[in-house]
């Protein structure tokens, strides 16, 4: 050991949970990048302004009712984007000076993510009662 450098007392512990959360966060980022733009476009822009491909009489509720593919698309996109966005925003908030609130912000963030995903799954199931049979 070089002179003047102390030995570490505690053994380092792998933050396994955080590693998994980071993996989910990265996956969510992929979904937000590849799937969210088209979803925002269809739901928030194409439908109300009557643009292609929703320039007929279809409204976006068909995305979440009826097809397994549609339900999966919405779940994966919204859940992934929510996780990714909140996760990242937590750290962005602490970096602008709210370091003292870090634990509280993290708890609040995970609560929002958890509640959001549970609600999302619940509403999708309510709208598609025949889904569990598929």
């Amino acid at each position, binding site marked *: 050991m070089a002179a003047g450098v102390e030995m570490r007392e505690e053994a380092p512990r792998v933050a396994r949970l955080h590693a998994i959360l980071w993996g989910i966060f990265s996956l969510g980022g992929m979904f937000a990048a590849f799937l969210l733009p088209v979803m925002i476009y269809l739901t928030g822009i194409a439908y109300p302004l009557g643009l292609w491909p929703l320039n007929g009489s279809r409204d976006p509720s068909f995305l979440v009712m009826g097809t397994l593919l549609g339900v999966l698309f919405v779940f994966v996109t919204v859940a992934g*984007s*929510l996780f990714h*966005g909140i996760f990242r925003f937590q750290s*962005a908030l602490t970096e602008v000076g709210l370091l003292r609130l870090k634990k509280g912000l993290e708890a609040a963030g995970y609560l929002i993510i958890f509640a959001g995903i549970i*609600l999302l799954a619940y*509403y999708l199931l309510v709208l598609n009662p025949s889904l569990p049979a598929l």
Partner: protein
Amino acid sequence: MTEKTFPELRRKLTSGWWTSNRHYVQYMVREWTSLFVALFSLVYIYGLSLLATGSRSAFLNLLKSPAMIAFSFIALIFTLYHAVTWFYLLGQVVPVKIGKTTSKPWQALVANLVLLIIVSYLVIWLLVLR
């Protein structure tokens, strides 16, 4: 020597640290656009709650409201900004080797943008046009 023999000056980082440098500002903008990604998801879940409780007209009126359209435009711009910066990061973090050459980040950006267009069209084709 582990003994300090002089008083040291400790300089703390202020909450405005990111304004001092162009790269830091770009970083902060990039991170804060993630807020809109999360916000749109939350608003969408709220909209689904209207639909799921039977008020389909309330859901459609929400989507047609000017506030929602404006929010969707902003959310789309910021989500695309997230996508573009995310693709560039992918290019930096996971460079691809083809033979002797390694890919550059801007190449990953272009390739993934093309992929984004393809995937978006696929989603529209599979869920809307069919």
